[in-house]
């Protein structure tokens, strides 16, 4: 299993400079990918813009959206953006797409919330299928495509159009059960081999309370569930090790650990914990 690290695009006090510093140091470190979250109505950086910048300061790591909310965006423009980042980075883009969890993001973007699943299916078919006759370049070949979500339809879209599944986070047991569903869908759609399985978790190895406060705020829209997410924040080296082992045993291919504070020394601590 590979381990990647999230860029702190949604945490308090983050700056452009800090994000580039994170990306540079992740590229120098043992990580196999850097990944970003997506949210419109929040003090956070836009995922494609950040990955484009990260492409310029890294040479090795994969650049991943975990996930981007596809239906908020115009299909052709998103395909062009993704292909551009893929081209800028020398073919390192992993594009994770899903419908997202918040209606307010749709309202802010001026996009109908109804029909979002249908639109995502259409976007995936467009990006993967080259139905535009490739008049909308650059070339999209080789973009690793992931789909997230927990509904049966999310799994069938994943198996139909993508290379793998982007899990939304949780204990290894929850990942394992989603992985079984992903594999079941993959086989049902007659795809060869197995889907690539990406997982994610949160960590705070410096100031745990700051991280927990951020998670409480970021997930306030989930109501009482926010406390469950806070409780799962990995705040010790031991917790990181157990989590990584649990995900590896559950069949995860790439585990992305997202910081819950912007401090760059979190990256050093994470590196130590993984060593």
């Amino acid at each position: 299993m590979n381990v990647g690290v999230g860029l702190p695009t949604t945490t308090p006090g983050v700056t452009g400079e800090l994000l580039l510093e994170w990306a540079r140091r992740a590229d120098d470190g043992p990580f196999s990918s850097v990944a970003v979250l997506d949210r419109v109505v929040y003090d956070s950086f836009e995922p494609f813009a950040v990955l484009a910048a990260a492409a310029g300061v890294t040479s090795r790591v994969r650049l991943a959206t975990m996930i981007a909310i596809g239906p908020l965006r115009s299909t052709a423009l998103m395909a062009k953006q993704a292909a551009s980042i893929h081209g800028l980075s020398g073919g390192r883009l992993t594009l994770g797409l899903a419908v997202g969890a918040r209606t307010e993001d749709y309202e802010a973007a001026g996009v109908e919330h109804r029909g979002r699943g249908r639109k995502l299916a259409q976007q995936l078919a467009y990006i993967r299928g080259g139905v535009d006759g490739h008049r909308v370049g650059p070339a999209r070949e080789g973009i690793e495509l992931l789909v997230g979500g927990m509904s049966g339809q999310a799994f069938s879209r994943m198996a139909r159009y993508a290379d793998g599944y982007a899990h939304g986070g949780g204990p290894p047991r929850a990942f394992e059960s989603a992985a079984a569903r992903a594999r079941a869908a993959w086989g049902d759609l007659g795809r060869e081999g197995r889907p690539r399985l990406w997982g994610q978790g949160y960590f705070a190895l410096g100031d745990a309370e700051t991280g927990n406060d951020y998670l409480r705020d970021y997930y306030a829209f989930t109501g009482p569930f926010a406390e469950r997410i806070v409780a799962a924040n990995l705040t010790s080296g031991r917790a990181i090790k157990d989590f990584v082992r649990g995900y590896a045993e559950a069949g995860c291919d790439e585990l992305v650990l997202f910081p819950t504070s912007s401090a760059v020394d979190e990256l050093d601590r994470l590196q130590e914990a993984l060593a």
Partner: protein
Amino acid sequence: MRVEIVGGGPAGLYLAILLKRADAGVEVRVLERNAPDATFGFGVVFSEETLGALRDADPETHMAITDTFARWDRIDIRYQGRVVSSRGHSFSAIARRRLLGILQRRCHSLGVALEFGVEVEELPEADLVVGADGVNSLVRRLGDFGTKVEPEGSKFVWFGTDLVFDAFTFIFRETDSGLYNVHAYPYDERMSTFIVECPRETWLVDGHADRSEEETLAFCEQLFANDLRGRELFSNRSIWLDFLKVTNRVWHDGRVVLLGDAAHTAHFSIGSGTKLAMEDSIALAASFVRRKWDVETALVDYGLERGGAVERTQSAASESAAYFGRVGSYTQLEPIQFGFNLLTRSGRITHASLGVRDPQFTRALDGWLGGAEVSPPPAFSPFELRGVRFRTRFGLRPSGFVAVSPEARITHETPAIDDWKAPAGQVLLQLGHAGARGACQPNSVGADLPLAEGWPLVSPSREPYGPFSPVPGAPDEAAIRDRFITAARRAADLDVAVVELDMAHGYLLGAYLSPLTNPENERLRFPLSILDAVRAVWPGALAVRLSVTDWHPRGNSVEDGIAIARTLAEHGCDLVHVEAGQTVHDDRPEYRRGFLTALSDRVRNEARVPTLVGGHLTTVDDANTIVGAGRADLCLLDLPPRQVERTLGASNSLLLAEVRP
């Protein structure tokens, strides 16, 4: 801290005990509508696991309860004049009245205020109000919990009897109007619980709606006179009821929290109601201790902690309730298989786990299937289909989609029958026409991604299959039928044991079967004409791959699929290869391990046709359980080839089917 608990059943009393035990300074009062010794229902069941939790939570009550337990480790299944027994199932039961007595005494000794004969009409003033007032909870109706209450399973009536059973006993009795069944278990040295159940249709035909309490008792006593061996049934307001399944979106609303049956019910056939209720009490009390008596965070904790476990139990209970609702369709099964099907009904017991508890039972099952006293497990038992003898139940090698003609292909890479070569050991030739799902890019890119330059597609529908798919035209039915006939004739010259016609997943013949993709009324007409034509030229085993349900509100339901399977069998189909969905691209699939098993069970036992099932089965134990329980005859396992080799040892010839001369 002042706590008012509405309802003096096991959940309410036990919570009172645990709260008071955690902090003697907490004021706890229990308000109960009935008298202290009034009780409805006779005995309640506990598992070993629950007992462990009770011991850890309060050793005093645990000791008092276990002192007066009836215990057994056997399940008896009385069916068609035979008794099938299984050992190794540790259960205990206690008279509900005795359990309440123990809990009440413990409450008194800890200083909990118990008030009986109190009818609560509005929420009491307190820091915490607990609704432990059962399935018809008043507390629940006074709050906003997103409650859903719906009947589940069959009709039932709850009796006691002075016949002391020595095992948990299921009794099945066939009558002219349908199958009745009994759940009976001892709960002390004098008495047993005796629950009679029958499907709603049977209940209507037999006119139970008009029977009084006495008449109902007399009817049941007479029906089960042999099993009761001259003993009596006792009524305790025993009338026919619907089991009500209660679910709530949330279990707390402000300072009010629901517990036990008020929060959730689980069908009695898995005997988990009291267990769940008392585990709720343990979790709620523990949350208060952990959260230092902060009501809001403790209630959030409680909901999060219990939600998953309760949901899993409720889903197993629903499986079990549904099983007893359709058990009449299993009466063609041999007693040993019937028994194994019953034991594995909710998915919590498998062939392997039962083999640990009760090796004698699995040996008997294996022996019956294998035809010799010492036989390998079910997946390794032989099976015969129109002259083809299979040595194992999971050795069938599907060819993958083989098109009846070049324009019937899915992708350029799909083999057409004229250039398909039967590989060695290949036994299942899957013949199909892609219909609206043709002319796609290679499978390595994705599924249903149209080629830039494809070929014309056909379908009974003018709707494109997915985004950017081309509009299909009208099929030339006679020409397509000829293609199927030619392909089936060709199969006779190849090393093929079973020919399968693809009527699943929205390919051409599957599209004909569904109202989503075929506007005409006689939807079986064309697929059946192909089945008949192929049957006439192919003498060997013939299978049909069928989407039993469309997984879509306007598509074929499971019942529709079973009816189709029955018709296919009447037209000479020997084996239904069970699939689901993909008739349209935006269906609502339900993926998990073994997602097709329940469908296969219903097709096999209701349409009475042999089935082949896949659906992400990942262990040989899956196949053993499925075949052993009669849910399918053959399985397709999702196992890496190396693991299959390891399972089979050196003699991987077991994988091959042989054709009898």
